[in-house]
């Protein structure tokens, strides 16, 4: 074991009162979270909601609820990452030029470099791994089984486990705000800055374990989704009829399954350096710091495609629905998804062209990177031809999908510029790169926002408010333009990234423009929250039937909205690629089953939550080096897994009569009826654990 700086005791490891930061901003954040926490706890206790929370959410194995919880975690982290962004923009606009003022003890701006560095590290880590990734995993969780006509995922229990491990990662990052500090080495973990000699605190350890634990969850989820798509398709759902979103989910999860282990190895070796005193990535003593960059980006580049492919899938579902035309070029769309996934494996070196490899190496990776543009271009043209001669309706999901197209164009073209080593040498590590990948990640965010608006009625039975949704979109778009166009420009002017102080006063106008942009984002967040609030409040008047948009095409729109816990009362038989269109043409879209059968459903289980709790104490013990706690938690996980393997009674039966009752109640769900979580007097969210 490595000797750590500062006090250490066997009982509480490195913990001490000094670990609690005394910073007014963090104190404010703590107050905010504490008040929020008390309000939520109070509501649960006095509203007698604990039992409901436990039964319906904490112990659930229902893929839709797990998906909803993934998305909730993602949205909370998106908000946290957004606050980080506001703080960074404000620091940079304040700290521009030698005469800029200083507040709160900072020479310029209001944040000390030590604090600023943690903020951008947390922002990047959170946004990619704890906001975008969980929301996408959540959406795939909800939609894929519905699209292929399955009752649930292939492994419902594993699904819940993945969720709780992701939650643990997010919780560790949030904890680092109030106890100790977070890594200051960037979201990529710049070596050798992450080594013990340069980062002796707990920050890097928080970063390592949050990612390590959550990525176990993501890997399990990927295996689960792949198995589900391969094995759980309804009869007639052949490969050539698979909806595009499911295809992109398959390709994206193949990326996840093959690339996340590399991240695990990279972080594991870094952990060995920090805990056992090895020298994998140190400068000297046999270490090779570039090996870390290599391993990180072997995962890192596939990861960026992991986040964008599902967004492509969402756009491919939304655009045909609102253009009221079949998707143009189905086969090429599938081929392009897999081409992108395949090529994404051989381009990672474009993240360090400037490292010093020879011209043939750089040329190889430059060409490989630009080849990605071909399948991406195919997709863009397919979407364009889908809209061409269609009857496009610009409801909010469509706005987001079309917005994503523009972002893709801008981000893709700047990516092509970066892919050329001569250009890259002049803008690498500048904010031009930051603007590039934010434009790309905007494709993901736009896709996500479109998908949430698009599938929300399927899951909850009512639509999100349209006028507020449109305002949200337009303010968000205005913010995107105001922040990132000036950022591209200042990147060209030579502004490097991750600056807590900007020496060149000529950059001030761009910083001011970006500050205005982030203000527009703040307004858009207000409209988003307001939209959620208003939609839930007025849900009775926003009710929808099975096909919420009147022009949906794929299988999932066949189920009642909201989807009952068993998805399909009778496993559907699939006849066409756009099954709902086929049924509509045959006049069958409202047909119900003639008779119902018993349904076998997985039982709720608290085991994944228990394992998650042990993983949390394990991570905490590792960060603070409390060895008895790590040993006990690890033992706890192993014993829980063993104990669970003896539980045979994992399913229950929903009787046919009960299914009929629920279905009849649900089919009566027309706009304007119903109120709270019940439909036609039947609680759709409630697994009826009878008859076992």
């Amino acid at each position, binding site marked *: 074991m490595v000797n750590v700086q500062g006090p250490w005791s066997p009982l509480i490891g490195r913990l001490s009162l000094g670990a609690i930061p005394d910073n007014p901003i963090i104190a404010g954040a703590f107050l905010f979270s504490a008040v929020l926490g008390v309000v939520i706890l109070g509501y649960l206790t006095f509203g007698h909601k604990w039992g409901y929370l436990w039964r319906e959410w904490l112990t659930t194995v229902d893929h839709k609820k797990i998906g909803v919880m993934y998305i909730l975690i993602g949205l909370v982290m998106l908000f946290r990452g957004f606050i980080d962004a506001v703080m960074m923009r404000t620091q940079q606009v304040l700290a521009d030029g030698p005469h800029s003022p200083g507040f709160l003890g900072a020479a310029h701006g209001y944040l000390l470099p030590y604090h600023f560095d943690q903020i951008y590290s947390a922002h990047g880590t959170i946004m990619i791994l704890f906001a975008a990734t969980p929301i996408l995993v959540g959406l795939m969780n909800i939609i894929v089984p519905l699209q292929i006509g399955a009752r649930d995922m292939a492994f419902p229990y594993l699904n819940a486990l993945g969720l709780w491990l992701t939650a643990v990662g997010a919780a560790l990052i949030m904890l680092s705000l109030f106890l100790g500090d977070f890594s200051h080495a960037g979201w990529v973990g710049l070596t050798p800055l992450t080594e013990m000699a340069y980062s002796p605190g707990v920050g890097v350890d928080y970063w390592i374990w949050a990612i390590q634990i959550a990525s176990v969850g993501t890997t399990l989820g990927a295996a689960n989704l792949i198995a589900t798509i391969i094995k759980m398709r309804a009869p007639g759902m052949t490969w050539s009829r698979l909806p595009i979103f499911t295809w992109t989910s398959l390709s994206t999860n193949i990326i996840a399954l093959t690339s996340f282990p590399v991240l695990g190895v990279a972080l594991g070796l870094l952990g060995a350096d920090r805990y056992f005193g090895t020298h994998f990535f140190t400068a000297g003593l046999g*270490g090779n710091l570039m090996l870390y960059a290599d391993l990180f980006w072997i995962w890192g580049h596939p990861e960026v495609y992991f986040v964008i492919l599902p967004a492509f899938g969402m756009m491919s579902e939304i655009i045909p629905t609102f253009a009221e035309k079949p998707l143009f070029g189905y086969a090429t769309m599938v081929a392009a998804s897999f081409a992108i996934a395949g090529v994404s494996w051989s381009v990672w070196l474009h993240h360090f062209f400037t490292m010093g490899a020879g011209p043939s190496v750089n040329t190889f990776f430059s060409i490989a990177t630009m080849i990605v543009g071909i399948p991406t271009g195919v997709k863009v043209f397919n979407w364009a031809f889908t809209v061409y001669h269609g009857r496009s309706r610009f409801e909010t999901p469509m706005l987001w999908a079309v917005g994503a197209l523009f972002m893709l164009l801008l981000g893709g073209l700047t990516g092509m510029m970066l892919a050329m080593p001569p250009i890259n040498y002049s803008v690498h590590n500048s904010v031009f790169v930051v603007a590039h990948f934010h434009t790309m990640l905007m494709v993901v965010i736009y896709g996500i926002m479109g998908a949430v608006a698009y599938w929300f009625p399927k899951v909850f039975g009512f639509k999100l408010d349209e006028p507020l949704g449109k305002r949200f979109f337009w303010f968000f778009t205005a913010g995107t333009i105001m922040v990132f166009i000036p950022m591209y420009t200042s990147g060209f002017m030579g502004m490097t990234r991750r600056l807590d102080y900007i020496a060149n006063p000529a950059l001030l106008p761009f910083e001011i423009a970006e500050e205005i942009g982030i203000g527009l984002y703040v307004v858009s967040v207000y409209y988003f929250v307001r939209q959620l609030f208003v939609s839930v409040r007025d849900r009775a008047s926003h009710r929808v039937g099975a096909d919420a948009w009147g022009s949906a095409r794929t299988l999932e729109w066949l189920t009642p909205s909201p989807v009952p816990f068993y998805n399909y009362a009778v496993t559907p038989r699939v006849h066409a690629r756009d099954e709902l269109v086929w049924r509509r043409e045959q006049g069958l879209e409202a047909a119900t089953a003639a008779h119902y059968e018993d349904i076998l459903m997985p039982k709720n289980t608290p085991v994944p939550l228990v394992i998650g709790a042990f993983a949390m104490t394990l991570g905490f013990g590792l960060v603070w080096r409390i060895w008895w706690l790590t040993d006990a938690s690890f033992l706890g996980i192993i014993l829980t897994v063993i104990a669970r393997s003896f539980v045979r009674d994992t399913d229950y039966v929903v009787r046919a009569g009960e299914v009929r009752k629920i279905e009849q109640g649900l089919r009566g769900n027309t706009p304007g009826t119903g109120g709270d979580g019940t439909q036609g007097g039947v609680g759709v969210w409630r697994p009826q654990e009878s008859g076992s």
Partner: protein
Amino acid sequence: MAHDDHDPLNHPEVRVASGRAYAAAFLIAMALMTVSLYVARHPAVAPHPMLVLSGVAAFVVAVQLLLLLKLDFSSTQIWTSVTFALAFPLFVIAVGLSLWMFHSLDARTMLMGLMR
């Protein structure tokens, strides 16, 4: 339980387990290890010791894949086999291109000097 008809021990993936195959895998691996140890200690016995060692290593891998992991084309194992086959090119890309890059880096930077 009425519907408790899925004893884990009846799963086809579990059924492929076979003590005889495991023992055979172990014995073959031991034998090949002895051979490679002997070649490593007495390189003169083989014309190209590195080639012989690599060949033996490949053979061990094949034995373990077939006898321990049961990667074959039966309906229960086919997806596992396919997964392995797909992982192979990825491995070649990741490791091969990395080696190429570090080789190029070595010639042009002082990085490797740092390592000593």
